[in-house]
């Protein structure tokens, strides 16, 4: 258990620090890289939670595909790649307040609600096969819906981004 806790500590520290840096950095490419760190940290946490397929997908889809998309977006919009750009709006204190309020109330109610509930560690472990069984039986229709959604998004993105 201790090892898991240590790992959790390290990973969550990475995730949180990276996330914070992501939303505060002035360099947009750095921000994208911080996001990669966040996503990777989260992937590792999924492994910690015995969700191997989710972790794999996280790495493949997010770090592989989504991040590439972001980098394309950054380049195509000719974002200034230097350090000099003000990336945060004037209203950031208000935004910080709102975020703090929201986070605070959520954390408060979580502490209130779950207190010191322990995570169930001796429950069943679902491997990739179990997940695929579930996806292709119980959730077959949502799965198909998501595939249609992806198709629609694909076409939509193409239509939107076409030059003419």
């Amino acid at each position, binding site marked *: 258990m201790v090892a898991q806790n240590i790992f959790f500590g390290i990973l969550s520290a990475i995730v949180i620090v990276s996330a914070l840096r992501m939303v505060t950095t002035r360099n947009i490419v750095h921000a994208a890289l911080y996001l990669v760190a966040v996503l990777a940290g989260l992937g590792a946490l999924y492994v910690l939670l015995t969700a191997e397929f989710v972790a794999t997908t996280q790495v493949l889809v997010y770090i592989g595909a989504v991040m590439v998309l972001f980098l394309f977006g950054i380049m195509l919009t000719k974002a200034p790649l230097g350090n000099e750009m003000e990336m945060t709006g004037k209203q950031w204190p208000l935004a910080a*307040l*709102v975020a703090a*309020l*929201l986070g605070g109330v959520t954390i408060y109610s979580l502490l209130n609600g779950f207190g010191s509930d322990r995570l169930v560690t001796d429950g069943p472990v679902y491997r990739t096969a179990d997940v695929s069984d579930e996806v292709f039986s119980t959730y077959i229709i949502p799965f198909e819906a998501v595939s249609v959604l992806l198709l629609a998004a694909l076409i939509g993105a193409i239509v939107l981004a076409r030059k003419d």
Partner: protein
Amino acid sequence: MWMLENAFVIPLIPAISFVVILFFGKRYIGADRVHIVGITALGLVWVLSAVAAFQWTQRVENPPPDAIVQVHDHGDDHGDDHGDDHGDDHGDDHGDDHGVGSGHAGDGHGGGHSSPLIRPVISTFSDWWSNAGVNFAVGTFVDGQTVLLLMVVASISLLVHIYSTEYVKGDRRYVHYYAFLSLFTAAMLFFVMAQNIIQLIVGWELVGVCSFALIGHWWEDKPNTDAALKAFLTNRVGDVGLLVGMIVLWGTFKTFDIDVINTMISTNPGAHHLALLVAACCLMAAVASKSGQFPLHTWLPDAMAGPTPVSALIHAATMVVAGVYMIARLYPVFYEGFSIGTSSINLMAFIGGFTALIGAGLAFAQWDIKKVLAYSTVSQLGYMVMALGVGAWTAAIFHLFTHAFFKACLFLGAGSVSHAAHHTFDMRKMGGLRKDMPHTYRTFVISSLALAGIFPFAGFWSKDEILLGSLVGQQNGYPLMLIFGCAVALMTAAYMTRVIWYTFHGEFRGHGHPHESPKVMTVPLWILAGMAVLAGAFNLPGPVLEPIGLEGLAHRIQTYAEPSVYLNGLGLSHPDPSLTMALVGLALAVSGILITYLYYWRRIGLHGLTERNRYARRGYTILENKYYLDHLYNDVIVETVKRPVAKWANRFNQNVIDRTVNTAGETARDVGRWVYKWIDQGAIDGSVNAAARGADSSGEGLRSIQSGKVQNYGQLLFGAAAVLAIVFVIVV
């Protein structure tokens, strides 16, 4: 008895005539011929009223069994008659008492009842309105008092209709004039046969509105509309008393029915004294406004701004007696409320007497002939109210009856004069008209004599009864009222002589050539003058008729008109005729005429003499010295009456009472303005506006939020979500 039970057709006819004239007159009948409709209707009304009057006398003479009420002599066995009365008064069948009732009717005071107590004919028609589960009917209440007024209203209205065809010929609102005459007649007839006090109120207000419309008939001129407004508003002030008084009656007896109210009081006098006192005082205010009693009389002289026939009909003969009529109709209320039987002065008698006095005094100071007559009307109405106040019910109604005729005649005569003399009413521009207008002159003099109370004209008989009534009273005499009455008798004779002097005698002071009015005006004058002579015959005292063997015809008004079915229960008695009182009254009137005669006629005579003969003028100085009497009259008596007293009264009237009324109106307006400006717009509205401004400025502040920037909206969204979550967390 058909007419008595279906008396509702009588007011219905002029009401229909009103609708026909107003809505179809101009288009289908012709604007200059609408009077045909009005006169026809009034003719019909007159005939039906006459039938009703005749049938009522038949009912009194040969009463059907259900009309008689068993009578006990209240003077003797007051103790044991209560039980019976409750049953009897509601018309139980006492067939065996038929004719016996006359024996019972207390005749302890000589003039007393010689006839049985006859119940009025009450017909109710429908559920007029209902409330609290009780249905209130509309109906007619016909008794002698009603038919008397029916005859008065119908006769004078008819004559005024005829007279007006000439007087207002070619007027720009001829149609409306006749329409409102008809409506007025309908309303007045409706009023006199009211079965319940709600109907009294309705009729009372409706005649007021007609009065308003007719005073303001020539509304292009502001003074006329001012007068109309003043009349209406003054009456409205009195109406507060009317409404409150009637409500107190309702609250006390839980009924609006006049018959029931009167019966309840007369069978059980003494009960509800306080409530009746309050009601009587309130109603007195209404009477003061409608019947021109002090201190609400000021509208009546102003009301002379209306056409003269209207003044004759409304402001002399009929509408202004509505107050007197109402007192008479609800006499038990006033009798008990003011303790008329036992007191020797009360509010009603005092107001009446005082009004009579100041009215007569004011009549001296006027130069406008109609205003003299108006003040005279005020004075005479005061007489009637005083008569009712001293318990002389019959005398008051008798005077109402006679006064209606001779005062209408006087007004129409004044109208005739003005018609001839270029529409002026200023007596200083008249004079010497007796030669040019012989008919008008004669009728005017006859009516003036009647008004002055000269034997044997109508006014003599009725005035005599009033003076007698105040002398004798019921249980106590009313000495102060007697003094007032005597003074007024003297003054009335005097100012009427003055009017005749200025109008008809001396030299013509106007311009143009006065001419006698056409027949259509003089015939009504003669009819009214005839009534001014004869009307007294309706209630002659017995001793006068005994020598010629006609004592059966004595006291006809008392016999037929008096609602003894109610008054008997109150123990109302009638004084014995008194020759002394009659002679005193006559002497006062004659001396009034004589004094004025000496004052005016003698002086003019001397002037004429001095102009004819220059030697005589020298002798005139001596004569003048001999005529210190003139000085006495002129400078001492008349001048004190005329200048300081009358002027003071006039000034008081114009400056204090009238000013009070005006000031009250202006103050109300100023208060209104003040309240509106400072409280309404300032405080209440201001605070509301301040709140609105607060909302507005906060809205201005909030407007900046509407930046259109997604992130701002996002902040709001998440912020609000956070706040809601916090609230939720705290609450749950």
